[in-house]
């Protein structure tokens, strides 16, 4: 597959990591330049640089990371990035199908190669096509699965890959060649549901990412080797597809039929200030309350002073009553619990006079110290927090798996009369079942 050398060489496919959201593949072609908003880079300058290096741009503005391709990075670097969501599925399928060095694998999936197939389509057309054919929208596509399999099977294994769409088949073939996968991957353009596979009694596992996998089940059975346990996986987004597939697998004699759904939930991690205890919130509220009270008293005092001034200047009584009225009203609004205070002046006065001055000196210093500490040593009071993303993919596809057991003489003999196969099933039970169903349909 891709280069395993320490340093980058001309002709290598590398992955350029610009930012987390901007990752692209690059074929190293000396003479060419990579131009991006993160600077200008000559391909020739990358030759001889170790994989995994951070490279500063020629003009000193910006940098990139040059990485060795992996199937996962390759998937991230594709234009259609939703594929990342299938990584959990791909890993799980490879594992269940026991794909390992030396394995022989069939994959019938849709290789959606690039956006150019989609660019000319309006959303409406896209939607139509989606309804018409699953292969466009619901695929592990883009060769993600092929690359994962190729990595796992190594040079001693083989992958037979089938593509229904001719243009896509050609693009996939070009890509496999560019990635040095030719010796281990055979790509065939054909409709496997109609024409079956090109190998017989050969492969260890089959992966079907097709709109109607049940049409390919019998073909798959023919391609699977019969001297040991083999496995199949059908990748379908709809439950209705699963049910049809299960019944086709069952009819074809596959066993251990099971189905899984798997997802990878990304977490968002933040370094945030430690959560405040409520005592601090309480202190803040108390301080606010105190400030409000001081302001009120100040206003009263101002009003009094103004009134006194006016009194001195002549029109006394009305305004005095007015000021008292304001104070009374405010007091009722502010502290309605304080009913015993028959004279409105009394309660605020005591609050204001003896404990308050001392407190007001004290309070800010007490409550200020914890925030002060936070400011002085920010790292100490930061905590790591993680949460799942608010919106994530909830479904990719159902993964239907089954095994095909090796044929031994005794089993082959037992297979012929089907009643023997289910010998724990009492014979009369079957007839009862039949009666039951016919009875019901009659009703």
């Amino acid at each position, binding site marked *: 597959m891709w280069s*395993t050398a*320490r340093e980058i060489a001309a002709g290598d496919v590398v992955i350029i*990591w610009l*930012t*987390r959201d901007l990752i692209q593949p690059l074929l190293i072609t000396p003479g060419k330049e990579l131009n991006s908003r993160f600077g200008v880079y000559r391909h020739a300058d990358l030759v001889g640089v*170790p994989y*995994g290096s*951070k490279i*500063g*741009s020629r003009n000193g*503005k*910006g*940098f990139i*990371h040059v990485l060795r391709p*992996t199937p*996962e990075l390759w998937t991230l670097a594709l234009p259609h990035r*939703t594929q*990342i969501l299938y*990584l*959990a599925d*791909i890993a*799980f399928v490879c*594992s269940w199908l*026991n794909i*390992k060095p*030396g394995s*022989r694998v069939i994959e019938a999936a849709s290789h959606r190669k690039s956006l150019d197939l989609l660019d000319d389509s309006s959303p409406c057309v896209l939607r139509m096509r989606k309804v018409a054919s699953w292969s466009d929208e619901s695929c592990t596509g883009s060769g993600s699965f092929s690359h994962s399999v190729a990595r*796992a099977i*190594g040079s*001693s294994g083989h992958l037979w890959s089938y593509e229904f769409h001719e243009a896509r088949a050609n693009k996939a073939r070009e890509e496999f060649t560019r990635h040095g996968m030719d010796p281990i991957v055979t790509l065939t353009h054909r409709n496997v549901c109609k024409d079956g596979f*090109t190998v017989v009694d*050969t492969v260890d596992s089959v992966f079907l990412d097709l709109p109607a996998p049940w049409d390919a089940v019998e073909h798959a059975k023919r391609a699977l080797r019969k*001297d040991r*346990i083999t496995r199949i996986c059908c990748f379908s987004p*709809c439950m*209705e597809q699963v049910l049809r597939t*299960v019944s086709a697998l069952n009819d074809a*004699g596959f066993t251990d*039929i099971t*189905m899984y*759904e798997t997802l*990878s939930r*990304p*977490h*968002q*991690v933040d370094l945030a200030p430690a959560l405040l205890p409520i005592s601090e919130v309480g202190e803040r509220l108390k301080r606010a309350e105190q400030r409000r009270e001081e302001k009120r008293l100040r206003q009263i005092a101002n009003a009094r002073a103004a009134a006194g001034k006016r009194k001195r200047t002549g029109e006394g009584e009305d305004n005095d009553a007015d000021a008292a009225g304001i104070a009374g009203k405010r007091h009722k609004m502010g502290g309605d619990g304080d009913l015993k205070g028959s004279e409105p002046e009394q309660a605020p006065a005591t609050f204001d006079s003896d404990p308050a001055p001392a407190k007001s000196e004290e309070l800010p210093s007490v409550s200020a110290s914890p925030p002060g500490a936070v400011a002085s040593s920010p790292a100490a009071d930061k905590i*790591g927090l*993680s949460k799942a993303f608010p919106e*994530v993919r909830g479904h990719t596809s159902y993964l*239907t798996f089954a*095994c095909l057991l090796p044929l*031994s003489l005794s*089993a082959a003999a*037992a*297979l012929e009369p089907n009643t*023997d196969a289910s*010998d*724990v*099933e009492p014979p009369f039970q079957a007839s009862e*079942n039949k009666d039951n169903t016919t009875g019901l349909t009659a009703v």
Partner: protein
Amino acid sequence: MDLGEGSSRAPIDKTRGDTIQPGNTLLLKLPSGDIKTWKFEKDSIANLGKYGSFHANELLGQPYGLTYEIADKKLKEMASRTLQEVGDTDATNELINDGQFVQPLTSEEIEALKKSGLHASEIIRKQIEQHANYSLKTEYSKEKYKKRKEAKYSKYFTVVDPTVFNVCDYWFNKDQNRLRDIRPDALSQILNLANVRPGGRFLAVDDASGVIVAGILERLGGYGRLITICDVDSPPAYPVTAHMNFRKEVTDVLSSLNWATADEEYIPIRASSEPPSGKIKSDAQRSRLNKRKLVSSSQTQTREELFNGEFDGLIIASEYDPSSILERLAPYLAGSASIVVHSLHVQVITDLQNKLRDDPQFLGPTMTEMWLRRYQVLPGRTHPMMNMSGSGGFILHTTKIYDDPAASSVMAHRQRAKKAKIENEILTETTCANSTSRSNVSPGSHPMADFQSSAEDTVEEGVPDLTDLA
């Protein structure tokens, strides 16, 4: 058409024997659903308790994955069983009362039937005939009833095919704690994210009973290298690997050091391999000393290999502080090496990610959680399993980078240009520039915004959507 590539010419299994051989550690699945570990010793008799016993040699040379019925200590291969269609039913449980006497067959009678050598299916049939309310049951509960009885009286077992998936699944169900919550889906993601491939050179810290080691060894298939670091002074027992029944060449790529011998500063204390008297007294002494010499020289070699570095990947599933492990082992990784850390605790991974994102030698640390749901698929009875595993743990994935401190970000330059214009904003802008030089990891930016946006872009694709079916 490459027809004719028949199985006769198909390659042998690269990582284990093609058939069952003496010395294998097998997993036998019993009718009750339990799995029993059994070591195949030639000419022995295997005892499966109430399910009977059989001559071990009956399994010799058999492929994995088959089901056998036990009769007279002999094994008869059972044909593969297919799913039974359940007929439509209008029965309800309205006429069935709990505690009613419905089963006239006493346990003594059943015992007698068993002793008479009657087949399990016959006993079950008799029970059903005698069962007063059987016909009142729904087809679903009839099925369940038969299944229950089958588990009780049938004498058969299945040799579980020892794939990494099956072995991991067995251990996870047996003792999730010993596997540090590494569920099969977690293991498969770890192996894929770490880019484990034949010929690669890997480091692993596996405090999860060897499930990681088993996975890596199988993916290497005898090509490449695996060095593990453990916390004991003798070679670590990775019990999970026993069930894999690996070929010798598969396990040969594994060497282990511990946290003392993996320390460059430390000079391991070794007993001399020279005879104390200067002369070898006996053959026993000679072989003892030779063995000692071999052990110490292989340890020296492994140490050198580790310290020379350039490993392609590192997998950590440890009970110890992952950042201290990374600090120690990251220098031995090549550029672009994949690092995968698994923990059963969300806090451990969260803290690690917060530490790593300030370190320029780790690119784009990403934290994910696994989710897995299994379904019962039976005709007319397909639904998610009532019980599901709560957690497969948490994974952090990142890539090792050769940092270039001289390279500065475009943002920093833009800020500098700005700075020339607006002297005022120096302070706020430079702090901003510093963090954007790692824009992908700054606390403010969503580290995985691509997930979010792509999920939004494709929300239409959320496929179980009725319009799609039209």
